[in-house]
């Protein structure tokens, strides 16, 4: 550990002694919280200062959400105290936190989809006239707030009709409406596109400049370095370090989060591409509303190379993945797998012919949550020998294979009888990856393979992608994370408006240029 990342219990890390400076806006002291056998927070100290953006960093399950839920009154600490402006406060529910001017933007938005933006913002604290909710006044307030903070929103729109990024602004507005002093955001960027993220970070910066204490939880290091004034790192329920961006860098932070050195930049050898495994020719595909999503695209993937598709979400990536894996019909054009046409064939046949698929939405398309790890490991081949014979399942063979894969892919907990729904996101993704990689496929279609999982697991999945590439697999990687596309791919294709606007070797590619292509489809 570098010497500037001092553990908090080290004497030199203690900043001003009590009583000298003004007390912090909020301070958590010695908080411990236990859920059954799990120690979610252990002796946690945490300070939030006015006018600062404080990043709370840590892997999934490190205890970040537990900590902020205690601050927001949703959980009560077993021991320890929360001080607001130096005075101990009892937070027995969100109502108490709101009274203390603490606001929170939840990871899963707490909005009522059928109500309007204005109704959602004022909910719980409505302006009324003679007992009637004054929606005109509510709309006016929302309008004023959204203009003041540069959050372009129509107060009359119904929340469920809005894109995710805008819904998040509604959550932020709700906090601003209550004139919060402290705004906590739980993984606010997990669901956002890169532009939305950029805009959110600007808004947070602006809020901090008006004196609000902003706490945001994340495990994305780039964002932390870009916007944070202070950084607190948690691991396994404990605070393991506190620093400022000037004193650290992404790889230090990653090591602290994971507890061991992490390679942020993937170590990789140059690819040695072989035969053309997947050829997409003049492919035209419609989206769910029957408008053209892919306007005749051409793309090749050769054995032993990773082709990354970069693009802002909603430019046809999803339709591309679904067409190649057989989940979506093809209007015209062809998809050739190792010389054979697969366009329009049913998904199981395409899978059997050698296309593996790590789907974008692992919960919906990748796994059956209520089934065991073992059953999920053979979802794509349970009907073949040795997993079933004459139509009868053979659990012993399934268990053997699952035990082997759980070990090889380091799924935790290593219990093949566990229900998949009980695993963490990263471990769920490992189950999907284990199943798809072990099917001896020719082509791997990996859509957002590391979405919502933590650094240790991202590193793991990336290494696997490269290993299978080196073993001769053709890999089509689709990701909204530009860093991922650039770090893993051998060639980078940019998709914009249903067309591939550029396709070139990843070696020496200009990140900004790719960004411009993603945004406008043109370079410049």
């Amino acid at each position: 550990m570098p010497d500037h990342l001092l553990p908090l219990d080290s004497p030199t890390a203690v900043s001003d002694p009590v009583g000298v400076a003004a007390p912090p806006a909020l301070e958590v002291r010695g908080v411990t919280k236990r859920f059954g056998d799990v120690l979610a927070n252990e002796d946690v100290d945490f300070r939030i200062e006015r006018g600062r953006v404080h990043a709370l960093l840590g892997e999934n399950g490190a205890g970040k959400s537990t900590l902020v839920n205690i601050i927001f009154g949703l959980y009560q600490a077993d021991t320890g105290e929360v001080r607001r402006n130096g005075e101990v406060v009892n937070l027995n529910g969100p109502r108490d936190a709101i009274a203390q001017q603490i606001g929170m933007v939840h990871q899963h938005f707490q909005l009522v989809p059928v109500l309007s933006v204005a109704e959602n913002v004022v909910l719980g604290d409505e302006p009324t006239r003679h007992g009637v909710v004054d929606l005109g006044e509510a709309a006016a307030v929302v309008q004023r707030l959204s203009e003041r903070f540069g959050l372009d929103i129509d107060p009359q729109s119904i929340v469920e009709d809005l894109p995710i990024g805008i819904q998040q602004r509604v959550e932020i507005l709700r906090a601003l409406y209550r004139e919060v002093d402290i705004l906590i955001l739980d993984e606010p960027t997990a669901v956002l596109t890169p532009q939305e993220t950029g805009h959110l970070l600007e808004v947070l910066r602006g809020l901090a400049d008006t004196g609000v204490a902003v706490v945001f939880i994340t495990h994305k290091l780039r964002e932390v370095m870009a916007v944070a004034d202070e950084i607190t790192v948690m691991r396994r329920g404990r605070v393991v370090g506190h620093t400022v961006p000037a004193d650290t860098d992404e790889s230090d932070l990653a090591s602290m989060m994971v507890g061991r050195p992490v390679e942020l930049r993937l170590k990789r050898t140059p690819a040695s591409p072989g035969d053309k495994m997947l050829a997409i020719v003049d492919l035209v595909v419609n989206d769910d509303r029957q408008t053209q999503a892919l306007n005749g695209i051409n793309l090749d993937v050769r054995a032993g190379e990773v082709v990354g598709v970069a693009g802002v979400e909603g430019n046809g990536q999803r339709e591309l993945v679904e067409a190649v894996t057989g989940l979506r019909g093809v209007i015209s054009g062809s998809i050739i797998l190792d010389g054979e046409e697969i366009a329009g064939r049913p998904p199981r046949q395409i899978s059997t012919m050698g296309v593996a698929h790590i789907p974008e939405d692992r919960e919906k398309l990748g796994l059956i949550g209520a089934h065991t790890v073992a059953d999920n490991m053979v979802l794509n081949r349970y009907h073949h020998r040795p997993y079933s014979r004459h139509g009868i399942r053979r659990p012993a063979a399934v268990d053997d294979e699952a035990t082997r894969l759980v070990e090889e892919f380091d799924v935790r907990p290593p219990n093949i009888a566990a229900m998949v729904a009980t695993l963490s996101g990263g471990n769920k993704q490992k189950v999907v990856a284990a199943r798809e990689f072990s099917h001896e496929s020719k082509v791997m279609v990996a859509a957002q393979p590391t979405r919502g999982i933590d650094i240790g697991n991202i590193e793991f999945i990336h290494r696997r992608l490269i290993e299978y590439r080196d073993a001769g697999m053709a890999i089509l990687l689709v990701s909204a994370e530009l860093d991922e596309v650039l770090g893993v791919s051998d060639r980078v294709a940019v998709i914009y408006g249903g067309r591939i606007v550029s396709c070139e070797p990843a070696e020496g590619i200009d990140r900004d240029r790719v960004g411009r292509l993603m945004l406008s489809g043109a370079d410049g």
Partner: protein
Amino acid sequence: MSDLFIRFRWVILTILVFVFVTLFTAEFQQAQTTAVLASALRQSTPLVFGALCGVMCERSGVVNIGIEGQMLLSAFVGFMVASATGSLIAGILAGMATGALMGAGLAGLSVTLQGDQIIAGTVLNIAAFGISSYFFQQGLTLPSGKTPQVSLGPLADLPVIGRVFFINRPLTYLSLILIWVVWFVLFRTRWGLWTRSVGEVPSAAETVGISVARVRYTNLIAGGCLAGLGGAYLSLEAVGSFERMMTNGRGFVALAVMIFGRWNPIGIWGAALLFGYASAVQTQLQFRGWLADDPQFIGMIPYVVCIVVLAGFVGRARPPAAVGQPYSRE
């Protein structure tokens, strides 16, 4: 206003058709037409009370299939109290209290104990059948008679409509007022906004400081009062005595009315009138001796309408998102 028309276009269309048919028949046989319409209103009143109870509960996220039981036991208790004290007002209040108490019971089972709401509602129904049948005594009467008829002066002299809407008994008038009151509470007041948000996303309500349990308890008890009025209407206003199983499935039809009315009191009124009209037509046909050998077929009419409506229109209606799910904070 225009989106109200669009949302309730089926209800509005149905009402228009009935108005048209009615005016047409009234041209020939005014007496019978008025009788059918008045009977339709009478038949729809308990459905309105039941469905308003349903809408209070479901808008806050609790399914109440115990409305049948709430109405039955309220009818019984209301009648017994009115019979013993000789006061109709005491009877009506006792009916409301019974409904409210059962609503509180449902809240206890489904909110506090987080039990299955369908089972909790079934418990209410079984309890009501059992208690009202066990304590039922033949031969009791109301010393004061049924609730009196009240004529609203000059309005009552209007052709057709006057006799139907403006010569009625107190609970019928009350139901017509409560439709608008419940609508106003749900869609214009703070409590209504809280109720709807609790029924859609309870965790969202909780995070802005609204107590989900308090909203649900209050609405279930208020809804119980409404169902209690429906029960009191049956025994004290419509019939004037209590009979075993006298609700005869009206509590369940009220749920259909609530769904057809799209969880909106005004829609509910239209839907209740439709079902009431079907019942009235059925009575009128039996009265005239149509299919006298097989009266069961005529008796089916309201239930067939119920099935057709539920099968035909309900698919498009969207219930509150959190209906039926117990809520817990962690």
